[in-house]
């Protein structure tokens, strides 16, 4: 099953979104990686890398992000993986993409299917 990492500047935002996306995807590993260690806003590369590790149940990981600098952190974390093809950062609306990706992963979708679900998630209906 594909895992998710939610890269955010805010710990609360990432955790709340993990909760929300997890509601309809109880079996998916959804790891929040938000905020800096000292509680301030920012992205923590080490936290993202650790989440990436833990989100991978063997089939790969999709990373979503809130703002541009979170995307750069996510990209870097993926590049530094032993096998970067195991993970992909997706350009998608953060909340809508995460919920759609979680549902797709829960349904057994592979990396491509989960990426597609995230990208196609527009504004919620």
């Amino acid at each position, binding site marked *: 099953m594909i895992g998710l990492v939610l890269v955010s500047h805010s710990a609360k935002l990432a955790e709340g979104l993990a909760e929300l996306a997890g509601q309809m995807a109880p079996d998916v590993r959804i790891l929040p990686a938000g905020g*800096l260690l000292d509680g*301030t*806003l*920012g*992205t*923590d*590369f*080490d936290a993202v890398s650790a989440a990436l590790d833990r989100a991978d149940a063997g089939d790969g990981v999709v990373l979503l992000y809130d*703002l*541009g*600098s979170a995307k*750069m*952190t996510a*990209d*870097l974390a993926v590049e530094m993986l032993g096998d970067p093809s195991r993970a992909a950062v997706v350009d998608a609306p953060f909340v809508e993409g995460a919920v759609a990706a979680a549902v797709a992963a829960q349904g057994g979708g592979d990396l491509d299917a989960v990426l597609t679900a995230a990208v196609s998630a527009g504004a919620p209906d």
Partner: protein
Amino acid sequence: MSCDAAGVVAALRSAAEVVEAHRDELVTLDREIGDGDHGENLKRGFTAVLSKLDNAGDTPGAVLKVVASTLISTVGGAAGPLYGTAFLRAAAKLGTEPELTASSVVDALAAALEGVVARGKAEVGDKTMVDALTPAVAAARDAAGSSVAEVLRAAADAAGKGAEDTVPLVARKGRASYLGERSAGHMDPGARSTALLLRAFADAAS
């Protein structure tokens, strides 16, 4: 300054001092068109770098690699992956070369710029650190026939000018781009910090 690992370590200590001294200025710039943390981000990053410098490595490349991974892990803002990638690419370009030369510094700066562009996808004129680093690399290349100190001085001068030139621009990348037209009239904090870092390296090399 020597151009071996010890010289690079010394230059990085100066850079950390400069970052500390300009923390508030960078915060103020970032408050105008961003989230006001650029100075604090870099201070956190370079404070961490300082703590790693004693045993950072035997070659300039090895030292810069430690700097890269430390900035990546500690900066916490866009500047983290951007400067991290810059130092990483510079380190890779220098390889295990024991001493910097004018020409290897030019190549390292060019590699750093490529890294920043690959990471952030900004073009010249987007009002980012790329607007400081791009002219810096061009000026360094023009000075490649001279000394390491001359190369760095040329780069620092050009970066300073590049940073000033970001003032009228409308941001198209990074947080400042959210402001649209309102981003004009302010210097880009990342361009400013690039100029400061290059100035610190140039001064250390002189």
